[in-house]
């Protein structure tokens, strides 16, 4: 288990094109680490660098002060990970990483069953099913369960919420938040609003310079400059005038309503 993954002057290239320049900062355990930015800003490439797949970079990556060795320490879930299922049953799919670590079938089964349950899948119901027979949300959870069963210290997820319905997104957001006590969880997403409450830091990638922001700073910047990040319009309209406030609410109707009411009370008291 690691506490911190630190980027030191990381410059990432694609041939002669510099994609990320002198990136410094760290991802931590205990909360979800978000990466956001426009298409082509280098989000997925950064995940590939951390995973050791993309080698064209200068600078270093350290885990708890020592050089980080990705092999065996990370799991990277690509976009639409369920498209990569290659086993005939849920049992084989979820246990594959353990099989590759030379565990025998009787050792794998109890671990795999418990792991499926942890990911909200009922092993009694789906153990012998083909992975593709599961529903969309179940497939995503199986794919992520299979990626994490060997307990990698660092888990990288590329758009894990895309294509799921709202119920599936909420369930997955809770599962990801639950993982952060044991793993450094790094998530690339176009929908940070869903995970913002569970996150502690956000890396905003941009061609003119990348920034590490606290969730509240991210909300504030986005409210002040609508082009910085397009938050939902209703949220901007409702809390835009309070952008400088230190306790901006999360992007949920009830939280925003309570926030507005508390501001109105304060205003009335002052009068």
């Amino acid at each position, binding site marked *: 288990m690691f506490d911190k993954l630190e980027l030191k002057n990381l410059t990432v290239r694609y041939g002669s094109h510099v994609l990320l320049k002198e990136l410094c900062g760290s991802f931590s355990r205990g909360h979800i680490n978000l990466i956001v*930015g426009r298409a082509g800003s280098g989000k997925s490439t950064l995940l590939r660098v951390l995973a050791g797949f993309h080698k064209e970079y200068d600078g270093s990556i350290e885990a708890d002060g020592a050089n980080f060795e990705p092999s065996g320490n990370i799991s990277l879930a690509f976009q*639409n990970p369920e498209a990569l299922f290659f086993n005939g049953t849920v049992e084989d799919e979820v246990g594959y990483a353990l099989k590759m670590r030379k565990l025998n079938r009787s050792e794998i089964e109890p671990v795999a069953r418990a792991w499926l349950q942890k990911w909200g899948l009922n092993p009694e119901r789906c153990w012998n099913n083909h992975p593709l027979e599961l529903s969309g949300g179940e497939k995503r959870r199986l794919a992520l369960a299979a990626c994490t069963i060997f307990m990698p210290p660092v888990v990288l997820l590329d758009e894990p919420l895309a294509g*799921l*319905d709202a*119920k*599936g997104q909420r369930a997955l957001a809770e599962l990801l938040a639950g993982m952060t006590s044991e793993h450094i969880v790094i998530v690339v997403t176009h929908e940070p609003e869903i995970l913002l409450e569970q996150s502690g830091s956000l890396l905003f990638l941009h061609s003119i310079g990348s920034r590490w922001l606290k969730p509240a700073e991210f909300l504030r910047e986005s409210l002040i400059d609508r082009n910085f990040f397009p938050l939902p319009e209703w*949220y901007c309209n*409702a809390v835009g005038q309070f952008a400088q406030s230190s306790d901006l609410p999360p992007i949920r109707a009830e939280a925003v309503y309570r926030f507005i009411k508390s501001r109105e009370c304060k205003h009335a008291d002052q009068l």
Partner: protein
Amino acid sequence: MIVFDQVSFWYNDRSETSFKLKEVSFSLEKGCVNGVIGGNGSGKSTVARLMVGLMPVNSGCVRVLDKDPYQQLLHSGFLAGIIFQNPENQIVGATVEEDLAFGLENLGLSHAEMHCRIIETATRFGLGNMLREPVANLSGGQKQLLCIASVMVMEPAWVIFDEPTSHLDPWSRLEFWKIIDEFVHHHGLGVVIVSQLAEDLNRFDKILGFSNGNMLFQGSRSEFRQAGESLHTCFNYPESWKFEQLMVSEHV
């Protein structure tokens, strides 16, 4: 006009639990943004594929511009174009120009006509100076635009979008809605958008709501808003509407 009359459809696997679209009837018209909503496995993508004629129905009847889209696709071309969720699955050309030309070649157009249409469409979608660009160099948002352009260049009467914004960044999503607005209101294009993003409901004029193969709702956006909580719990309800209701409720 797209008309579904008592349409049922099931995939080959006919076990008890397998998916079935059950006797669905509706009609959609041009001039507004038609939205098809529902969760994973609700049947919304199946409806999109039936509209385009990718699969024959098991019973009932689908009509697009008063013709059967499946028979039309088999024999003499297409009635409605479809844009899939993931642009990577739809791009066939090595360059932007080749991808735009692919559908036109299949329509058997002359070179002069193809050239005109490619230039015009590429310009409209901001791809005019990228015609020779390899598609691999395009960003995700640009690839999505290319997919849309490659269908639009064939000048279909209807276009069905299957979760078009799920792979776009938030900036490109705003651009996408601008383009849709222009095509629906200024170019007479019939548009159906399949989506499960709650906030997209704000963009739809007419809504079809699916759950587990059943159509639970059809009507306008305002009718959907007034349809009551028992219906709303079956779908993703936008946070913006929840917020408005909270603000209104205190004045009641």
